């Protein structure tokens, strides 16, 4: 055997050995960690799981803790599922204890079971008309269902049982989606909220500014809201949308940098990175694709609004986007849902599919110029702009 042959053979063996000892970055299959010290997962430092059955009050406290924690974590569904499991003994009860029923309504609402939540809330306010939380949640759910007069009435019930800031914000939110966004802004600007309510009020004011077409103001107010509460996912998403609409995708993308984002935020981040032609787009897009695939395997139908946007903007599947947007509108009718349906219908060149939103715009006198531009049959002068 000559030297060249020997060299080739040894080279092959050495190369193979290199693959044995090199870290296998490609761990698509199961593997046994090389070292006992290898950290595999971050877990909560203490998760004391109660071993004895909880009393009503204990269960309510624990479920509320989990819901609060979920909110801080951007709506972690694992924590919500745990909260639901805590309420399991009462989950199917026709008339559970009131402290359980309000939490059950909250969870149902977060699972997008708005009708189910409403049943619980009706029972709750009937049993205790001084339950401010129930009236407030009821107003929000009715608003999402586009039942505005009832939502408005629910806000009125807060008068006298809740502080003036809560009453005003409740009213302002309904006003905002019924053509009176500017008036609502004036109402909120006159408030002096307590420290713990400041972020909330700023966030709603930012949203109202966005709805009334004043994105400069929306940007300033939402930025302020995020300074008050950096974990405010709602304001961050809204601000990103405002920046994206304003042709500032790089700034929108920057909002999510270095944060553990939820799926809705990741979608927005990817949309922004794509618009900004950022080199980070590919990585984040792959991450998003993986999460969407996982949600589809799970058979989730919760997130049709986001899925529709994903299908339209990233997958380029116009028909799927429209189908999802239509289904989503049947469940929830917030301005963002209206926009998704309008965009999908426009892309699919199906003005007919957008009719429910066209009707909604006409009925509510909703003011956001962006939505009215997207609407296939623009409304006449009387519907545009602000009512005095």
């Amino acid at each position, binding site marked *: 055997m000559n030297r060249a042959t020997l060299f080739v053979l040894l080279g092959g063996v050495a190369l193979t050995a290199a693959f044995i000892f090199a870290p296998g970055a490609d761990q698509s299959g199961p593997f046994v960690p090389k070292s006992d*010290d290898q*950290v595999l997962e971050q877990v909560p430092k203490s998760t004391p799981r109660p071993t004895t059955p909880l009393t009503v009050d204990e269960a309510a406290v624990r479920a509320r803790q989990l819901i609060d924690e979920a909110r801080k974590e951007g709506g972690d569904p694992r924590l919500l*599922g745990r909260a639901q499991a805590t309420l399991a003994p009462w989950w199917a009860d026709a008339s559970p204890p009131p402290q359980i029923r309000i939490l059950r309504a909250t969870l149902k609402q977060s699972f997008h079971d708005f009708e189910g939540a409403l049943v619980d809330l009706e029972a709750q306010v009937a049993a205790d008309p001084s339950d401010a939380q129930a009236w407030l949640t009821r107003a929000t759910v009715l608003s999402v269902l586009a039942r505005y007069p009832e939502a408005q009435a629910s806000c009125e019930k807060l008068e006298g049982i809740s502080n003036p800031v809560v009453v005003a914000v409740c009213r302002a939110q309904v006003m905002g989606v019924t053509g009176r966004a500017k008036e609502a802004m004036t109402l909120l600007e006159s408030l002096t909220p307590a420290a713990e309510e400041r972020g909330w009020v700023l966030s709603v004011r930012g949203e109202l500014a966005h709805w009334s077409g004043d994105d400069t103001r929306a940007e300033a107010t939402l930025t302020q809201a995020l300074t008050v509460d950096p974990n405010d996912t709602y304001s961050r998403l809204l601000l990103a949308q405002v920046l994206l609409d304003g042709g500032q995708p790089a700034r929108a993308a920057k909002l999510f940098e270095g944060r553990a984002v939820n799926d809705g935020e990741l979608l927005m981040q990817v949309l922004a990175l794509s618009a900004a032609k950022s080199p980070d787009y590919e990585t984040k897009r792959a991450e998003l694709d993986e999460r969407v695939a*996982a949600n589809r395997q799970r058979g989730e139908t919760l997130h049709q609004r986001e899925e529709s946007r994903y299908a339209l903007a990233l997958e380029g599947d116009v028909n799927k986007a429209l189908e999802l947007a239509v289904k989503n509108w049947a469940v929830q009718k917030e301005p963002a849902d209206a926009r998704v349906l309008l965009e999908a219908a426009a892309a699919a060149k199906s003005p007919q599919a957008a009719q429910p939103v066209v009707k909604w715009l006409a009925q509510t006198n909703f003011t956001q110029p962006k939505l009215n531009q997207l609407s296939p049959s623009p409304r006449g002068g009387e519907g545009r702009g602000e009512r005095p």
Partner: protein
Amino acid sequence: MKHLLLVILLATPALAHKGSDAYWTLTASNTALSGRLDVALKDLDLLIGLDGNGDGKLSWGEVKAKESPLRETLTNALAITQGAQPCPLTLGSLSVITHSDGTYLATPVTARCPAAITELELKYELLFDVDAQHRGLLSVSGTAGGNWSAFTNNRRTQTAAFTSIGAGEQTGLAFLEGVHHIAIGWDHLCFLFALLLPSVLRRAGADWVPRPAFKPTLLDVAKVVTAFTVAHSITLGLAAFGVINPNGKWVEVAIAVSVALAAFNNLVPFVPETRWSLAFSLGLMHGFGFVSAIRDLGAAGPSMWLSVFGFNLGVEAGQLAIVAAFVPVAWLLRARPVYRALLMPLGSAVILGVALFWTWQRI
């Protein structure tokens, strides 16, 4: 719509990170079932309390320390019955796997039923009592990544219909996959052609001249093919059974470089007469390249070796078919100027160019 106290969850999608899912795959082969159960470590931590030192960081050592309660919990959560007869379950050795939302414990699950498997009653009730939104996602008969049907809090049992795959059929499917893989695997084909082009020639000084007799040609071909086969069988086996977990990207790069080297050796020979050594050394890389195809077969558990065996057989068959088609033609053409002046140098140069392009593309 935003709300102060509780309602904030509303419009920010509740899909946050991801709901809690476990993945259970099962394949039937006559009376035997094999598959795998993947459960998120953060979910198991909630059930069992895996974080021994309570520092919020779960290490492999801490997981192993809780092996027996883990096995007990998993075993109690699963049940398989055929008619009224139970099919006793066995859990294999613990490993981990990465899913989109974190690290999961991965455990082989095997079971044996009293009779040939067509339809089974499956029970899954892990985690529902602590997470009412948890789902156990089931995939049967090796359709991994295909259709998943969910066990939920309200649906803890389901009847699953299995297309039982016999040992012969499993080997046969893997065989066809092996043939297919060679037929569509341009890099493997180019590698083979580059090594076989000079088989009908021999080196005389700085020139290639036609071999006068067929036997040395056949011997040369046999050496190259055997070396390639032995080499890729070794690495395919090592990687398929998890002894080596090669980095996919660099495997692809190494394969592209191997093709370039084989072609380069025809133009500027460094091992003209012992190309079998190249076939062996570089063939080792090609074996790593076959692993992803094996994984796509969804083979796992005790019958995995059938798939590996069948696949390898298919690769050899595909390879021999190409050799059988190529060598006689090359033999007949070997003395013509078109072969030595055109096919051999130009063919090698084209393969070299393509391989260098692949290398650049894959880095």
